[in-house]
């Protein structure tokens, strides 16, 4: 009744090609953005912003990167952690070598360096597919972490191999390090994630995105209709790594402030992969849902269990948290194998017919 195209006429091509063609969708997005940009900084406590929202946004960004590669271009990757580490260490080297550099420039350059590394490790994808490619990207994961752990130059010869993010400014405002307030850090990450999400959404609607999807659906057919697998696959690797690199740099600079290479171990790659599988492959919304599921739910569960009077048994609460989490993952995969984004899709279709389904 309230959520349908009826009565919303489009009078220009621009309107017809808009990302959100329904007025209700546009209002919904604006409300979400208003909450994220205005309400959260005003209302949320420091605990919320710094330990819940920041990792959630950064993980969502990494998931977005992997989703471009795996969800849109169909190339399975287990190298996300390695690419995030590349972004983090590249940003660290840049920020310490050129202290005057604006942090936005640092981020972009770190992303570009990661994109280059991603292309290098994407080369095998031209020859191998599926699980074999997953194993090849696994090599990237282990090699890159080994490299940052082994060569002291990457950590500026820190004895422990830990890099510690210095304070850097973006447009004159400190956005990283201890001088930046949590709210600034949150807003900065939010702006980056918003812009990159918008870019990703648009990329998937452009020629490049369509070529990724063609490769994903059937590479031989795509080749026959004139899509070059080389450019399509490597551009997917480049864009994906760019996103992961920026996520890694934000992780080191905006969230923890100090990381060692091990912080981006194989576990991170798996977490991001689970996020996109649970959230929904080949969707933008799914990255946020998946990140929320994997990052936020355990924190909620833990707080809930402790709140229900388990302060005396933190070990039990941790075990229960892991068990409930595992059960929920299995439950959602059975109920909706296409991910949480698909549930939203179904809900939208139902809404269109509500209240008179036929």
């Amino acid at each position, binding site marked *: 009744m309230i959520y349908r195209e009826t009565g919303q006429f489009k009078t220009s091509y621009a309107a017809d090609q808009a990302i959100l063609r329904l007025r209700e969708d546009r209002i919904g997005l604006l409300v979400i953005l208003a909450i994220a940009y205005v309400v959260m900084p005003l209302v949320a406590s420091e605990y919320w912003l710094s*330990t819940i929202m920041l990792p959630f946004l950064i993980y969502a960004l990494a998931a977005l990167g992997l989703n471009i590669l795996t969800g849109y271009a169909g190339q399975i990757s287990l190298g996300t952690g390695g690419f995030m580490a590349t972004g983090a260490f590249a940003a660290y080297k840049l920020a310490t070598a050129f202290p005057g550099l604006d942090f936005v420039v640092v981020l972009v350059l770190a992303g570009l360096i990661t994109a280059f590394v991603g292309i290098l490790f994407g080369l095998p994808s031209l020859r191998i597919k599926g699980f074999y490619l997953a194993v090849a990207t696994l090599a990237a994961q282990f090699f890159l972490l080994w490299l940052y752990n082994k060569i002291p130059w990457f950590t500026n010869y820190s*004895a*422990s191999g830990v890099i510690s993010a210095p304070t850097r400014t973006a447009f004159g405002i400190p956005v990283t390090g201890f001088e930046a307030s949590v709210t600034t850090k949150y807003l900065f990450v939010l702006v980056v994630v918003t812009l990159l999400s918008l870019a990703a959404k648009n990329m998937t609607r452009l020629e490049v995105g369509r070529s990724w999807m063609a490769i994903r659906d059937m590479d031989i057919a795509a080749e026959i209709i004139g899509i070059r697998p080389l450019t399509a696959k490597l551009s997917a690797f480049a864009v994906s790594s760019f996103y992961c690199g920026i996520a890694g740099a934000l992780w080191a600079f905006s969230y923890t402030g100090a*990381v060692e290479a091990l912080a981006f171990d194989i576990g991170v790659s798996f977490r991001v992969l689970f996020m996109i599988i649970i959230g929904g492959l080949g969707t933008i919304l799914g990255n946020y849902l998946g990140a929320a599921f994997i990052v936020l739910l355990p924190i909620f569960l833990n707080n809930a269990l402790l709140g229900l009077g388990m302060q005396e048994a*933190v070990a039990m609460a*941790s075990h229960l948290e892991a068990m409930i989490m595992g059960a929920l993952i299995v439950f959602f995969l059975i109920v909706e194998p296409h991910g949480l984004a698909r549930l939203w899709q179904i809900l939208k279709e139902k809404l269109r017919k509500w209240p008179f389904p036929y």
Partner: protein
Amino acid sequence: MIDRRTGLALMAGVVAAGLVATAAPAQENVQFIPSLVYRTGPYGPNGEPFANGVADYYNLINERDGGINGIKIVFEECDTQYNNDKGVECYERLKNKGPTGAAVFSPLSTGITYALIERATADKIPIFSMGYGRSDAAYGKVFPYIFNPPANYWSQATSIIKYVAEQEGGLDKLKGKEIALVYHDSAYGKEPIPTLQKLEQMYGFKLSLHPVAHPGLEQKATWLKIGRRVRPDWVLMWGWGVMNSTAIKEAAAVGFPMERFIGNWWSGSENDVKPAGDAAVGYKSANFHGAGANWPVHQDIFKYVYDKGLGAGQRERVGEVLYNRGVTNAMIVVEAIRTAQKIHGVRPLTGAEVRDGFEALNITEERLKELGMEGFMLPLKLSCADHEGGGPVYIQQWDGQKWNKVSDWYYPMRDVVWPMIEESALKYAKEKGITPRDCPQG
């Protein structure tokens, strides 16, 4: 059978509980001490006795003395699973609890310590990383809120080398000796390397490095290399968790003599040697506090905590090495708060006030005797500039049943370590744009 509506209601309940869980019970005249522990996760078996030691000591203070000078301790555990992200989450969750916020954090993990250094400094909450964490944080002029007494990894490395030298007949006899370091390939394991390299230059022994990837279950190649090719005179180990018992088993398999295999203080608990069985007999490790339940403080713990049914763990595991380390950790925290109360008055204190207590901390021989810990550890004194104290370690040896103290206490080579700490801390300060503060005692 739960129908859909009940299920939804349950879910909503859980989420709502999660939202309200941050509201702590209101108690006014208490000191809140957060406790980051790991009873689960890959290192859970090691985290558990430590956490129990901490909990039992706080309960002892509450039950026997009615708190610190009458200010009861309220403590809350948060399970980090030895995971840096969870550690940060726990820190943020607990830092504002209690009437005055968190008194002090003991992150119990080198990785989490690194992640918290800047946050805690900004929040003015002291971090007490007892014998782990960032070694150069001993330099109080650059790290005003970080404390790592009684000794950091660098100091410990020099103490162990002193012991090795004594066994060989003097520091000059180290020349030409082969010393291998088997280490956990992480921030923690890499800490002693610069110090050992410095000592290598000074004393002319030959150091070889053998990193072991986390979690350390696969060490066959490492030990074949050590046992057949390198053939060192001594092997030192910076290991943690399952890596330790695996290393002991592999060392035994290549026939390396246990008497010449020395772990650091995180590689010398019952959990490390018991799984290796008879192979571990003769294995040595460093330690900075007593092993066993033979001190008066343990009798008090039995009397006031376990006999009242308040014990956190099993009675028979009281006195294990990691349990005692938990007790030591809690004891130093309590003494620091007591010292802070002398400065700021007997009331619940904020983190910044407790910091002053740490800087004025002076645990003397007499005080240790009063605490029922005479000989358990040696006196400890900190200052504004020195956040480490340069405490001594001794070497203990496993006899198949228990750990025995087999050496004297060795003070670290401060003349070697302190310039390195200063250099590293000043480099950090420069990178971060921190101006080192002045300390009255210089």
